[in-house]
């Protein structure tokens, strides 16, 4: 029953994808497109499924996460390589992070100017990843990022976590159970993960990168490293082509589905399959990566974001929205009937557009543990409006990288 339903759904989405492709190639003007050299394959399959922790011993089927695989090689090698699946696609961060337990390759360790290994404490919203910065050649679809600094999470060589990393107060996400993925592919609007803050010395340094000699870890700065180019990089920016952003295409989801498949397309306006078409460009604040959302008369000025790595619509609170939270899971909304809501997004460039979305009963939506693709999952949020993965259902969402030129202007921006 379930399988039949899914099959029908996939057929529909395939037809829609074909139609969209035809529409795109028809829209790119000109006509003489026969003598173009064969383009780089820039389409990577993604799937919203229960992820690598679904089965025993974890039994934690992932909810609303888009997974894919990447191939990493020892730099310069075409044979010393490994393809790793169960990688979470995250437009809310930048950089490739792979669990040490999922990595069989031995990759070269990045060292600071004093010769010590560089290790990172990377802050996500619900946890931190601690582990060494190493270098790999990464391949995804037909694209390659050579000598890419990545983070290897949970390496036994650096098992002592500095106090300033644990003082963020967030749990370590250093194994499969706590990360829920074999790795995270951060392909957001920033070109690297930390930026200029991590090149500062003294109290201005946020304590993300550490130099770790055997005597213990110290925060790194530009003088001891960590320069912008040594930081964990958004892999897309290192591609030879199609390096100005990404598009995530996922079909519409009604309620809860077992899984859905879609595409991660590299480049914006660089090939016939990634033109902007009729989407609207919403530029974002280059320092925060946010734009503005107005919901029910409340303005989230420079405090709203689209993030494939969050798994729901997270906004406001129960008292303000009037939507009750679930009795057992107070981090989710549990309305007695599905709420049809709408909000207005506004870019820094003044573009505005209405978004209609639904918030359903999370207890009901998450009851079947086989369902990974859930539209309508939502919950309270403090101070920010978080458009998580359900926002991507039924939309083609473009993320343009800071400083990169596209036919829609320079990034950073979102377009949909």
């Amino acid at each position, binding site marked *: 029953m379930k399988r039949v339903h899914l099959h029908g759904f996939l057929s529909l989405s395939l037809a829609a994808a074909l139609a969209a492709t035809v529409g795109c190639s028809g829209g790119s003007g000109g006509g003489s497109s026969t003598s173009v050299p064969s383009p780089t394959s820039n389409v990577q399959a993604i799937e919203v499924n229960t992820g690598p*922790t679904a089965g025993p011993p974890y039994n*934690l*089927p*992932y*909810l609303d*996460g888009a997974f894919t695989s990447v191939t990493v090689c020892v730099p310069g090698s075409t044979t010393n390589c490994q393809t790793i699946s169960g990688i*979470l696609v995250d437009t*809310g*961060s930048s950089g490739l992070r792979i669990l040490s337990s999922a990595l069989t390759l031995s990759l070269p360790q990045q060292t600071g100017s004093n010769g010590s290994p560089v290790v990172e404490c990377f*802050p*996500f*919203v*619900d*946890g931190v990843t601690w582990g060494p910065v190493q270098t790999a050649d990464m391949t995804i679809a037909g694209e390659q990022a050579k000598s890419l600094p990545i983070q290897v999470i949970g390496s036994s060589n650096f098992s002592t976590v500095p106090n*300033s990393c*644990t*003082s*963020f*107060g*967030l*749990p370590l996400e250093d194994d499969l159970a706590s990360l*829920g993925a074999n790795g995270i592919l*951060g392909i*957001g609007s*920033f070109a690297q*993960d930390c*930026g200029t*803050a991590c090149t500062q010395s*003294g*109290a*201005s*340094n*946020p*304590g*993300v990168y550490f130099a770790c000699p055997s005597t213990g870890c110290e925060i790194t700065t530009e003088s001891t490293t960590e320069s912008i180019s040594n930081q964990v990089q958004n892999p897309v920016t290192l591609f030879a082509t199609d390096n100005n952003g990404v598009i995530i295409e996922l079909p519409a989801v009604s309620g809860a589905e077992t899984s859905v498949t879609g595409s991660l397309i590299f480049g914006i306006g660089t090939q016939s399959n990634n033109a902007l078409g009729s989407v609207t460009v919403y530029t974002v604040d280059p*320092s*925060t*990566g*946010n734009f503005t959302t107005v919901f029910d008369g409340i303005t989230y000025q420079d*405090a709203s*974001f689209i*993030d494939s*790595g*969050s*798994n*729901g619509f*997270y906004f406001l*609170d129960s*008292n*303000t929205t009037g939507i009750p939270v679930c009795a057992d899971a*107070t*981090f989710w909304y549990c309305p007695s009937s599905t709420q049809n809501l709408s909000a207005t997004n506004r870019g820094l460039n003044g573009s505005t557009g209405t978004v209609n979305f639904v918030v359903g009963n999370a207890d009901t939506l998450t009851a079947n543990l086989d369902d990974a693709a859930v539209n309508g999952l939502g*919950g*309270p*949020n*403090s*101070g*920010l409006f*978080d458009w*998580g993965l359900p926002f991507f259902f039924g939309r083609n969402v473009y993320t343009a990288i800071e400083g990169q030129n596209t036919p829609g202007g320079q990034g950073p921006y979102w377009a949909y």
Partner: protein
Amino acid sequence: MKSRIIHGIFVILALPFPLSASLGGDFTSVQADQAKMQGTLQTTSGDSYTVHEIQASTGVAVKEYVSPAGKVFAVTWQGPFHPDLRQLLGTYFDQYAQAVQTQRAHRRDHGPLLIQQPGLVVQIAGHMRSFTGKVYVPQMLPAGVHAEDLR
């Protein structure tokens, strides 16, 4: 001039210097936080509470809300990174850390953090380069103050 400097040093040494206390602490704990964050302090007084805003050089801005009774009943922050939560939560940190471990062990997703306990609420939201957070003790909110209004 000279005596003034000596006087200043004396006052600092004479402070009860909390090891780490903010939430539930008094104004001296705010000063301790400011010293730890090497930030600037700005104070705004209202009818129901006083807000001490610490601007750290990392770009993180922390607001500590002090009740008429002189106790920090809530802390909010925003900025490109997380603040030192161990410092800001003080004696509440262990309770929080245990609650968050328990919740994360059962969650099968990634998203904002919301820890709601009878004596402590912790909310952390955002993404790389833009985070916000709010912690408060519901029982300590002054009369007429709603947690939703603390930003």
